[in-house]
């Protein structure tokens, strides 16, 4: 039962990852990110229920607080204050991106196949999906031209990792999880600081301006 | 080392030193005959030397000690050379002092001194002569070495004494390889002694002279020594050629009875060589300086062929 639920969550996660990849609107991207966080925390709760590991509840709580409430709120505020509600511009057009994405999914499933067979956990099929969503987030970072979507891509990458941690291994030790959470939080703050710095300096959040430092030989 | 050896050494040296101008006179005489002239006579070189010794020396203002020292050094080198070469007899006290390679070195020493002296005064001719002489010599030396290779291969030695003993005092064998080497040697002799076709000893035309350009600043006794040394050089080269290729008649060490025969043989060979030289000079024309490398290259080729023949044919070569 829980097994199927987890697989369902995994499928959802992958779906959201693709949705993010195809999304053009920045606000929707934030919502999707929040939804991803929500799926993630639900997944953690399910795993916790299934395996009766108490620290996973705490982990789910942290996830929920951080990734469904705190970060989307922060991002929302940021784009409000920076007044950047424009459409997301991509470097490669979206159909191509999707195509590459599908290839990545195939690759990661194949890579995960031997591992999944070995994994002793009930959730072994999910590792491939986790890896796929990590790679998809990376792809998103590569294809986005503006700073904010890139950061969202980065954060969703972390989500993928977190999913891998919970579903494939029942969560990392608590100390580590706390540390990771702290890092993500601080990281987001620093991203925020950067947005202001970049805007202050370049009057725009287009990463296009950040291509001056190159080889000048 | 007995007194006899020293005496024979002294005898050979003195004989060669005093015979050298005669040889030059003979060559000039032959040339004159070949040109249908009557010629100045055999003893002309002696009277030239005498005349020069009697004159006042004229030196350029800026001539240094090197300039004045050079004639003596050059003359000394030639005398030493002629003492080492077995002109009359092998195994003289001086003969182990140098093999053919060291002899080449000795000639080089004289030449370098001459070239330096030529540059000392600082005229255009001096340096012109010096550089041409050095050029010709540099190109001749590799070929000369190749020439020496062949007899050295035959006799397993570069010492002239040993070569002569091997070739002359053992059973008579004809070596085809030596023919090549001899041809090459003659060409080199012409080049090294400033003869036609490489140089013309009789000319003082600015653009063609080599040797004469070098000694242009010399006069009186210095010039005399230079001229004498030049005659000695020709003599020594001829003697080397004789020792390498036609050594029959040279006396063995300490064999006094052979000496008169050796003198006769030497005179005959020198006469023949001088006449041949004159003929050679008559039939060839002086060549441009930049043709000289080709000429010497040809000599080199002959010498290498000689050596290869020797290696190919083994003991029969």
């Amino acid at each position, binding site marked *: 039962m829980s097994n199927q639920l987890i697989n369902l969550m995994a499928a959802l996660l992958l779906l959201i990852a693709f949705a993010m990849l195809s999304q053009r609107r920045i606000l929707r991207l934030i919502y999707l990110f929040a939804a991803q966080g929500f799926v993630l925390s639900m997944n953690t709760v399910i795993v916790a229920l299934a395996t009766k590991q108490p620290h996973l509840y705490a982990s789910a709580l942290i996830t929920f607080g951080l990734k469904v409430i705190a970060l989307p709120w922060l991002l929302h505020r940021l784009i409000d204050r920076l007044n950047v509600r424009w459409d997301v511009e991509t470097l490669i057009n979206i159909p191509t991106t999707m195509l590459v994405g599908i290839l990545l999914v195939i690759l990661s499933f194949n890579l995960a196949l031997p591992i999944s067979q070995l994994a002793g956990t009930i959730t072994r099929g999910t590792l491939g999906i986790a890896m796929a969503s990590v790679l998809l987030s990376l792809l998103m970072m590569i294809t986005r031209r503006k700073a904010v979507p890139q950061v969202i891509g980065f954060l969703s990458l972390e989500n993928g990792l977190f999913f891998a941690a919970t579903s494939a291994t029942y969560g990392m030790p608590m100390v580590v999880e706390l540390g990771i959470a702290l890092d993500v939080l601080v990281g987001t703050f620093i991203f925020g600081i950067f947005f202001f710095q970049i805007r202050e300096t370049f009057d725009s959040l287009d990463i296009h301006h950040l291509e001056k430092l190159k080889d000048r030989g | 080392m007995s007194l006899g050896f020293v005496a024979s050494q002294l005898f050979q040296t003195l004989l060669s030193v005093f015979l050298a101008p005669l040889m030059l006179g003979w060559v000039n005489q032959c040339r004159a005959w070949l040109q249908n002239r009557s010629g100045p006579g055999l003893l002309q070189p002696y009277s030239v030397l005498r005349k020069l010794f009697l004159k006042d020396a004229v030196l350029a203002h800026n001539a240094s000690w090197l300039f004045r020292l050079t004639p003596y050094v050059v003359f000394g080198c030639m005398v030493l050379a002629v003492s080492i070469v077995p002109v009359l007899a092998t195994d003289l006290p001086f003969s182990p002092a140098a093999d053919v390679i060291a002899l080449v070195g000795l000639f080089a020493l004289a030449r370098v001194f001459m070239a330096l002296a030529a540059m000392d005064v600082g005229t255009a001719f001096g340096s012109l002569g010096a*550089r041409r002489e050095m050029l010709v010599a540099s190109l001749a030396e590799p070929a000369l070495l190749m020439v020496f290779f062949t007899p050295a291969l035959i006799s397993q030695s570069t010492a002239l004494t040993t070569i002569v003993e091997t070739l002359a005092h053992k059973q008579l064998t004809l070596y085809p390889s030596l023919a090549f080497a001899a041809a090459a040697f003659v060409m080199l002799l012409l080049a090294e002694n400033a003869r036609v076709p490489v140089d013309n000893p009789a000319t003082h035309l600015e653009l063609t002279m080599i040797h004469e350009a070098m000694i242009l600043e010399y006069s009186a006794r210095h010039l005399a020594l230079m001229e004498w040394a030049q005659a000695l050089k020709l003599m020594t080269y001829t003697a080397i050629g004789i020792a390498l290729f036609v050594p029959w008649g040279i006396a063995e060490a300490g064999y006094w009875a052979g000496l008169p025969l050796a003198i006769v043989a030497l005179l005959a060979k020198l006469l023949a060589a001088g006449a041949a030289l004159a003929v050679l000079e008559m039939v060839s024309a002086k060549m441009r300086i930049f043709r000289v490398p080709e000429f010497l290259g040809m000599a080199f080729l002959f010498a290498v062929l000689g050596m290869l023949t020797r290696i190919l044919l083994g003991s029969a070569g």
Partner: protein
Amino acid sequence: MLAVAAYPALLGEPQTLVLPLGLPDLPFHLRLDPLSAFFLLLLGGASAGVSLYSTGYFATAGVADLRLICLQYHAFLASMAVVLLADDAYLFMVAWETMALASYFLVTTDHGVAEIRRAGFLYLVVAHVGAIAILLTFGTLQLGQWNYTFDAMRGNTLSPLWASVAFLLALFGFGCKAGFLPLHVWLPEAHPAAPSPVSGLMSGVMLKTAVYGLLRVTFDLLHQQVWWWGVAALALGLMTALFGVMFAAVQTDMKRLLAYSSIENLGIILAGAGLAILFHAYGMNVLSALALAATLYHCLNHALFKSLLFLATGSVMHATRHRSLGKLGGLIRHMPWVAALALVGTLAIAGLPPLNGFASEWMLFQAFLLTPGLPNSYLNMLVPVAAAALALAVALAGYVMVKFYGVVFLGLPREELSEAHDAGGWQRIGLLWLALWCVALGLLPVFVVDAMDPITRGLVSGSLTESMQESSWLFLTAIAPARASYAPMLFLLGILLTVLVTFLLVRRFYHGRVRRSAPWDCGFPGLNARMQDSAEGFGQPIKQIFEPFFKIERQQPSPFDARPVYSSSIEDRVWYWLYLPIVKAVERLSSLAGVLQQGRIHLYLIYSFATLLVLLLLIQ
């Protein structure tokens, strides 16, 4: 400065001794065996003269920071000594590079000049690349973990393939320092750039450390040779020698001329070493000993006369402030001491008897004459012909040295040089010391060969003394006295005697009246110093005959030019064939690499992504 003078005395006696300094893991091994003792002697002998000279030179040359120079100078000397003494790879490399570094700083003493900086740069780069190659040689030779001592390497038997790799690496590595053919480019730049005593040391001694290294690796550490190594070394050596001497003939800067002449001499030395390898590979040990002795002898000789000549140029430059041959001339009248001593060096380097240069070349020729005995039909026909190349090189060296001495010291000054003065006392002593050794080594070759006996016994297990003992100490012989002999002492005596006799006779019988007048002008009055041969003019025949070897840039005016300017410059083709293509290739590669760094973060992410994917696919 004076401390260095005591140097040779300290290191004089050849003895064998092992000094493991107690360091853990990488202890420094020092060992003094005959080979290193010989080279130490060479170092001591040459550096004593140079040091004496520099005592005077640096004091008057107006060098900015004397302390610094002294430090570098002594570091240079000490590191050369350690190179010779080192008995493990690490210490050897440390000393080797310290030597390069110290000499680099000495070369760039006058670093305000851009050309000197460029020369120093080129020098150090080549030296470093060479050092890495040497290091790899030792890497090939080492036995295994932590065992970098030469002792261990001696005991190590390599397969012929690996041994050849080691030899080729060593040839390349040491060739960088010694200036063998395509690696010589730094030499004519660095030597003129350095202060003269340093040029003398570099040319005279430092280049020999490369020879030492090559001999050490080839004969001592690799103890078994393959015949084609010898052929390779011989061919390379002869090409280097010819190349060096041809370029020396067309130089117009006296120190560059000497630098190219060093290339030539190192080529001769390499050819000798090649011959020794060849003989030894075929088990002809005595002949190998002859070639090796000739090689070592020539090393010693070159150290002496080349330092002597560099020091002489130092005095000339100091006195006239010129180094271009086109501006000098007639210095024999202003600087009699330097001129006389330089004459000794000139005659010695030109390979003239009875001085030392001839003795070693004579031995080498003898060794060549024995090559028809090689048991390989191609070799016994080709190698003797190669001797002709050596003869050509030696003969052209005479040409070059006549040019050098004639243009600098003889003739008329080409510029106003009246303020030129002779060298000071210390400088004279330094020059004299070197000149005396040139003469002594030339006159007493048998003692030198005797002294080298332990080396040849040790390295090629052949000995020359047996044949020497048959004849007296006067006669240098090759293998057997009947074969060939050479007695420089008799030479000198003979020449002196006849000169003396002639002189006395001339004096006795003829008057000594001498009249001074202007030189004969062929009826064309107004001879002046500009009509003498210039350095270019003197080299012109060589330029013409060997034109294909040079890259000549000529500038000729049009016939209507009112102020015609002629110029021609000679460049090294190797630059255009080897170095510039390498530089271009590196530039092209680096601009290709530059594409990696576009400044676009997306691209960087793609790299990371692609790397990840490739690796993931790779491990599957």
